[in-house]
């Protein structure tokens, strides 16, 4: 189908970003175009943290969109990335999740690649000697240097690794924009990171819903009892909802409320439990860290592939790995800093109970995303409403706004041309 056909099929009028057609979450053609235009071209995607591959030869396998990629530290200490796809028979050759190697060998025909992704060895390239003459092998015009692995452009900043299949992509700094970059640097300011561990969940919903979830301050103070009741994310929080100039990325920065919730803010909010007290209050033993500044939480959506969470003392990256229009894998990497003392280390681990597939304020996000997708699948020609805070896409500072979601769709519509 021609591009115009897709635009027509979706039928999203004018500059509207507030009445979102549900087919953009369920349609295969939309999804294929997203992979092409958002994940494989023009954007930086999250690959991991430098501390995951600290030594020469260390590698990890991850994905960009649906493509398997390898990130590796070479002998010089530089980080390289390439697709996990043998140049020969296009086999996804690397099966280990991580490890330490001197080179990569595709087991099928033993083609050998170095840690820069260059093709170093092709068995019987010059053929085999039989009855005194060479026969078989590769034609003489086959050049190893032209048949390496598909390389990624790599950017690292503050210990975080991003990659792009697009060699012409703008610099990572320009990609984030000055203001979002400042919030990125607030966390990744050069301190050495410590990997605490991983959680993985498969969420049966379109990947964009997770981006929307973390651009949606409105739900967080309603769905999540722990947030509302303990003031971590509530209507009376001081809040700033900002975007980069393209509006694809966003930061929700908030300052927790330590006072009791005012009655009019929580009356009728069933998730607010006025008399709820924890049997073990150490679970919300929050200690203000100096580098936070005035905000106690910053939730960053770096379009299209990652969410970076600082919610009080808990820090994580959340990697979005799409798998068809109706599902994505969500991979959480929790981290701390090398200079954390023992108490802070323990505190970060304990507060991790709020997050992840079983978390007090996250398990329910996965659930509502699944149920949303169920609604969409049965009604692809219907639309949803994102009108909180009006129809505009400007910065906002109240919980009752969906400006960031509309901002993302303003950008999405431009790039997707629909």
């Amino acid at each position: 189908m021609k591009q115009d056909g897709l635009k027509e099929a979706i039928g999203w009028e004018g500059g509207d970003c507030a009445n979102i057609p549900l087919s953009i979450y369920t349609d295969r053609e939309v999804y294929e175009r997203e992979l092409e235009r958002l994940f494989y071209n023009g954007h930086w995607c999250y690959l991991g943290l430098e501390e995951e591959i600290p030594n020469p030869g260390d590698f990890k396998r991850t994905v960009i969109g649906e493509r398997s990629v390898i990130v590796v530290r070479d002998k010089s200490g530089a980080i390289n990335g390439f697709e996990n796809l043998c140049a020969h028979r296009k086999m996804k050759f690397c099966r280990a999740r991580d490890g330490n190697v001197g080179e990569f060998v595709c087991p099928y025909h033993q083609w050998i690649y170095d840690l820069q992704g260059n093709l170093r060895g092709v068995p019987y390239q010059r053929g085999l000697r039989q009855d005194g003459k060479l026969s078989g092998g590769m034609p003489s015009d086959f050049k190893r240097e032209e048949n390496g692995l598909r390389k990624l452009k790599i950017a690292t900043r503050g210990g975080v690794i991003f990659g792009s299949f697009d060699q012409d992509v703008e610099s990572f700094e320009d990609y984030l924009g000055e203001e979002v970059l400042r919030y990125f640097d607030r966390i990744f300011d050069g301190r050495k990171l410590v990997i605490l561990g991983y959680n993985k969940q498969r969420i049966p919903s379109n990947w964009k819903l997770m981006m929307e979830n973390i651009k949606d301050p409105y739900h967080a103070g309603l769905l999540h009892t722990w947030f509302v009741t303990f003031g971590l994310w509530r209507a009376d929080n001081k809040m700033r909802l900002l975007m980069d100039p393209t509006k694809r990325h966003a930061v929700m920065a908030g300052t927790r409320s330590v006072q009791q919730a005012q009655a009019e803010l929580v009356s009728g909010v069933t998730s607010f439990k006025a008399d709820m007290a924890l049997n073990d209050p150490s679970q919300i033993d929050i200690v203000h860290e100096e580098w936070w500044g005035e905000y106690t939480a910053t939730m960053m959506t770096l379009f299209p592939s990652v969410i970076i969470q600082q919610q009080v003392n808990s820090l994580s990256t959340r990697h979005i790995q799409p798998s068809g229009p109706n599902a994505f894998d969500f991979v959480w990497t929790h981290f701390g800093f090398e200079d954390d003392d023992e108490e802070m280390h323990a505190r970060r681990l304990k507060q991790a109970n709020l997050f992840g597939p079983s978390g007090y304020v996250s398990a329910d996000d996965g659930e509502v995303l699944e149920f949303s997708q169920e609604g969409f699948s049965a009604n692809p020609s219907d639309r949803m409403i994102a009108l909180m805070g009006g129809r505009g896409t400007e910065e906002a500072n109240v919980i009752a706004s969906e400006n960031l979601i509309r901002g993302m769709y303003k950008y999405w519509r431009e790039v997707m041309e629909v």
Partner: protein
Amino acid sequence: MPDNFELNRIAQLYASYERAINQREFEAWVDLFSSEPYYRITARENFEKNLPLSTLVLSSKGMMKDRAYGITQTIFHDPYHQRNITGLPFVSSVEDSASGKGRLVQCEANFSAFRTKLDKLSEVFCVGRYFDEIVEEDGALKFAKRVCVIDSEMIPNAIIYPI
């Protein structure tokens, strides 16, 4: 090695645990732990790499009670039935505990958990291995520690109930 009587008691503890979570009797679940309990669910990858992160970690009786409350009162989730099936305990050691309060049994067992959502087919929810420490308190065996290491690292959306 444990004698038959002790093995029976461990098996009875396992069965009580299974019953409590399968029947969603979360207070009974909390009661199967000792006064200083440790309960952890973690991905096999974390366990094998010695990474400290858990999917869920409860290191006090209070935290366990808060989880029981969370399951029923604070975490919005799809209703589902869970069916945990635990294998036989492999007892790796029995020793007199340092405090002199009786014996400490270390054992392991395989488990599988099935999930059945309303109007949906039953599915394998997660499989893995328990690493347990069992003590005697007030004449009853209790878990001092239960670590659930899950092979099924890719969790089908959310884990709400204990495993």
